[in-house]
């Protein structure tokens, strides 16, 4: 009797989960699986040759051209994450000292780039950073420079545009972690002779380390996989992995190779998450 009831309860539970599960399997798992399969077939002018299997597409990725794209993407991502990490602590500390009147607005300001469509933002950046854009015009008007600086269609432009969009992923967890620290700890350390920077190094930093690492990993992944900002602000000569994948798939119509790039990117992302979780252990 009891077994049957437990079983029917089980069944009902499964019933609730089923719709979402089916949708996810059909529209999420299956497409990804297909992509993986596609990456293992050779490409022909007539389309994907599903009769044969090959590892050539993945081998192709070690081509110097592709490696260059990868290193460029890594370089940009590291720089953006570094900026985010360095800026996050001062800003998070300032947030904790802010009155409730200002705090929500400042937080909203830092969250807003995520809420605004990245194409719109990238467009705004192009207005600011182009040769006759606002920044250059202002710099020249103030006689700080007499020639326009190249702030766009290069890595600099991409970096500038990526920083705001992904910053909140480092800032918010870090702010939460700092706010959760018992204020008595700072005062206790003070009475024991610790100066401000020592309190930071011995109390704040170790206690906020997991949040910082987790945030930076997410930030880094988002930098690596960003599309709109690098596409609009990077130009033809600043290819990143996601734009490359797009080009290979939709311009060159080489689906297998494009799939291989996508799979490689996904594997890299997942590996990073694993590494990040390991690193985020309390110091």
């Amino acid at each position: 009797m009891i077994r049957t009831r437990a079983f029917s309860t089980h069944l009902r539970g499964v019933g609730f989960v089923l719709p979402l599960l089916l949708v996810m399997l059909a529209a999420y798992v299956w497409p990804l699986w297909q992509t993986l399969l596609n990456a293992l077939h050779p490409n022909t002018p007539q389309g994907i040759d599903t009769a044969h299997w090959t590892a050539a597409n993945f081998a192709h990725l070690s081509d110097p051209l592709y490696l260059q794209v990868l290193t460029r993407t890594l370089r940009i991502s590291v720089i953006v994450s570094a900026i985010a990490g360095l800026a996050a602590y001062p800003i998070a500390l300032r947030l904790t000292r802010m009155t409730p009147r200002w705090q929500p607005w400042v937080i909203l300001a830092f969250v807003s780039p995520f809420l605004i469509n990245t194409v719109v933002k990238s467009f705004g950046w192009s207005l600011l950073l182009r040769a006759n854009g606002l920044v250059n015009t202002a710099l020249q008007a103030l006689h700080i420079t007499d020639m326009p600086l190249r702030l766009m269609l290069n890595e600099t432009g991409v970096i500038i545009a990526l920083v705001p969009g992904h910053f909140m992923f480092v800032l918010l967890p870090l702010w939460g972690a700092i706010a959760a620290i018992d204020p008595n700890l700072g005062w206790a350390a003070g009475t024991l002779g610790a100066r401000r920077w020592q309190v930071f190094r011995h109390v704040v930093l170790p206690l906020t380390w997991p949040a910082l690492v987790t945030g930076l990993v997410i930030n880094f992944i988002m930098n690596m996989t960003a599309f709109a900002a690098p596409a609009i602000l990077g130009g033809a000569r600043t290819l990143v992995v996601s734009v490359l994948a797009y080009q290979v798939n939709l311009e060159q119509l080489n689906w297998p190779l494009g799939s291989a790039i996508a799979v490689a990117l996904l594997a890299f992302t997942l590996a990073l998450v694993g590494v990040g979780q390991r690193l985020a252990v309390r110091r």
Partner: protein
Amino acid sequence: MSLRVDGLHKRFGAVTAVRGVDLDVPSGTFFTLLGPSGCGKTTILRAVAGIYAPDQGRVLLDGEDITARPIHARNIGLVFQNHALFPHMTAFDNIAFGLRMRGVSRAERRARVAEALALVRLEGLGSRMPAQLSGGQQQRVALARALVVRPKLLLLDEPLSNLDARLRDELRVDLRALQHRLGVTTVLVTHDIEEAFVLSDRIAVLRAGQIDQVGVPRELYRMPVNRFVAGFVGPVNEIALTTVTALDGVVWGTTENGGRLRLPNEAAAMSGGAAWLIVRPEHISLAPDPVANRIDAVVEDLVYAGAATRCRLRAGGLSLAAQLDGEASGLTIGAKVTVGWRAEDGVVRQDD
């Protein structure tokens, strides 16, 4: 190291937490700031520690004005109510922290931390994390951490309030022994009267940011300066007196329903005016001697509390609380009794 506080004022926004407080704590003594929550006692302590900067006033340690000195330069030990141990460090590292900040060598650190752990009777527990220690143990580590740096002044912010009653008693005894042994000037903040009485050399009773009375426990209990202090340090009976009259060397008070009660002689100074007669429950007895104030009353309630029996009596318009020794056998609710107290056991105070 003696501590002196002069005219301390501290405001938080529209609220004045401390108004014009003066303190004088001689070197090596145990001084307590006692008062209900919100009276400003913690604020004063934190101002002495350097956490809050006073709006007005000075803090002097051994005559030196340290008011402008930052927290880390004051060499003051502070123990918090919630122990505030660094959760990511072992007990050993917690205690060693102050020594590290002072650049003490590793070998010396090890020796002094071991010494401190022994002092608080926690030998061998140095490698435990705070989360692995019990509440009492955590507070001991906090104490060791504050003391290992040999501070000039030890400040305790309600350190026992978060512990259960038995632990509290245990730690209280240890605290007292420690302070006597080390001779460190100590200031305790608490709202617990028993704690204050057991530990302190002198106590300051605070109310709404100001000190009402400073004195040894006995003074506060037997000669409270006003109704608030009287009622705060122990249970009281308050009887309203419409007039006080002095007649032939005897001082009388008239109650609201016309009765006459004999008052202690020092009440003569208040003759002519209205006042309050304060009598402690333990001074009311069932068999009062002839000269005392005598009242006929009816027993309303009896509560047996082990060593004593608490009794509520009604005498006309008055409701009195009496504390009788032992079992008070023979008394039942509704019984008619005659109770009384000696004139000199009463305290007369006027409204402030």
